[in-house]
């Protein structure tokens, strides 16, 4: 028992028990103090183990942060607008960030996006028309209430901003076509070609569209053919387009008749639910 290691291990156990007692008694201050002691004791144990033991590996250098690129100074809503314009469909913040990172320089975080969305309605209502465009939510086809998960652009038509049962798929396919076109353009241009992020984004779309992947798929994005993706997406789009268009058109007609201008942008209040009941 004369081994200092044993003695230290004992005091470590004692410390742990004391921590348990302190936490059980709700004494967090004492517990964290004891924790610090425990940590010191554990370090001492390490030191005792072997004087020659190599020091803990030096932390691996972190990959260098991407240098701030041009365009980074644009306000966030400009980034969002640009990404949405590329997609041409209502989109969730995550996809907007994805499109942004794939095709545009600068920082855009999802958290920034959500605070942005809260501001839009307030800013519109305080002075409608003060801005060239707003970023309102999409509208549900039945209740015409806001679909808060999806962001649109106020300059789009109501049809574009309404979400019917088929719209998520239609918008996904449309988005796939637009992204493929953008990748294609980048590949044709004189620059560096599409970014890895862009190829990755396209790949994520393509794997979920029948026949959009090359036949002998080795499974990674570099093998993708944007034109094939476009063709495949169009083929499936043809299946859904009519049904989707009909619902969106009907709903927008209804919206134009029953909703005020600002409601046409930011959606009917949820009292609309009673209307639904009556209809059902």
């Amino acid at each position, binding site marked *: 028992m004369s081994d200092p290691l044993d003695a230290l291990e004992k005091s470590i156990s004692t410390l742990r028990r004391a921590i348990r007692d302190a936490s059980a008694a709700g004494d967090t201050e004492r517990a964290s103090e004891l924790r610090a002691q425990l940590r010191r004791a554990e370090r001492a144990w390490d030191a005792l183990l072997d004087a020659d033991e190599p020091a803990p590996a030096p932390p691996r250098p972190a990959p260098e942060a991407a240098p701030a690129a041009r365009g980074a100074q644009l306000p966030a809503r400009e980034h969002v607008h640009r990404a949405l314009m590329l997609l041409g469909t209502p989109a969730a913040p*995550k996809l907007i960030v994805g499109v942004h990172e794939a095709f545009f320089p600068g920082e855009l975080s999802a958290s920034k996006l959500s605070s942005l969305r809260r501001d839009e309605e307030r800013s519109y209502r305080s002075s409608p028309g003060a801005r060239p465009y707003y970023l309102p939510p999409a509208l549900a086809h039945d209740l015409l209430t*806001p679909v808060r998960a999806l962001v649109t652009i106020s300059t789009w038509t109501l049809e574009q901003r309404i979400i019917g049962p088929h719209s*998520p*798929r239609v918008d996904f396919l449309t988005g796939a076509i637009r992204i493929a076109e953008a990748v294609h353009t980048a590949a044709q241009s004189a620059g560096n070609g599409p970014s890895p992020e862009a190829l990755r984004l396209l790949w994520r779309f393509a794997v979920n569209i029948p026949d959009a992947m090359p036949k002998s798929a080795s499974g990674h994005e570099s093998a993708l053919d944007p034109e094939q993706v476009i063709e495949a997406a169009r083929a499936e789009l043809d*299946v859904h387009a009519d*049904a989707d268009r009909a619902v969106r058109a009907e709903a927008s007609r209804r919206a134009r008749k029953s909703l005020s201008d600002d409601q046409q942008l930011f959606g009917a209040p949820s009292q609309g639910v009673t209307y639904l009941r009556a209809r059902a």
Partner: protein
Amino acid sequence: MKAPVDDRLAALRGSAKRRPYNARSLAALENNPRCTLRALLDASGSDKAAIAEHAGYPSPFGQSAFAFARGNAFEAMVKDNGCAELLRVLRETLKLTLPEVAYLDLNDVGGDGSNETRRDRTAEVLLQAAQGTGDGTLFDHPMLYLEVGGQEAFLEPDLVAFRIDGRFYIVEIKSFPIIDGQADPAQVRSATTQACAYVIALRALLEEAGIGPEAVSDTVVLVAPKDFTNRPTAAFVDARKQVSALTRQLARLERISDLVDLLPEGLTFDLDIDKDDKRPRRPAEELAEALEQVPATYRPDCLNHCEMAYYCRARARAEASLDVLGPAVREQLGGIDTVTMALGLARGQLTPTADQSDMAAALRHAARLRAELTGEVGGAA
């Protein structure tokens, strides 16, 4: 006779708010149906964790924030972009046709997220689909409803898919992986049992509209990450046995009055929580006394799922019950309940009853062999 039972159950719970049933607690009914204590605590909607803690046995069940975050992130990813990933796997497994993509979000109804509104809206759209007048294929977070032992239970599957042939499928999205076509059976089991509650609730909903049970498949679709990737894959789980097992347990719940009738008058598990400092005012000893009035059936695997397990284990230890050692030992000592009895018979200190004579002979023989051996190798331990 219904009212008195409900009153007795309410009295058992006391001043605390009733804990409503959910898919998880319904699934837990299958774990240890023999346990009276658990049945009463569940039926009365008592807070088992709080009771166990006040009795001196805080339950160690907690969910890691990582698991929670991962579960949510995976489900969101699967449903991103118009359920793109989900559609791909459902087209593979359920053979959904190309036009079957219509998506209805039932997480709220025009911003109204109350259970009742969502339940009504869910009923409306699912019945439309079943009757061929709706065009939904994917129903995101519908709100189902089931009456359990006279209490309401709101149940929220991850997704219900409706196939063109007129069948609903419960789709469970889980973040544990399917590696080379296999997943952890315990996790599959718990996901399946929860899905069974949805199957039963959905069937109940359709039944009111005169639609038979075959409209809801008892094959559940499990969507989970494939291998070590983040991409989903889907697998079928044949839940027929679990559906009938859970149906049985729900039926047993209706018979809770048999158990309630056996309880002493005035028994309650009320903690008498102080309105201000949220601490129980009831003396812990008093609670312990109340708990002891009710028989519990402890099994070691209760430690994996029941909040009361540590309490019950302590009780079983105090009673020297062989339950502590688990079914393997119990099985060998059939008919003997306690350590005291087993060793008393083995050492010949207790006289066996006629019932026990076989076991006593076997125990004495085993004890003799052990004595010979430990004599040879120098005593036990």
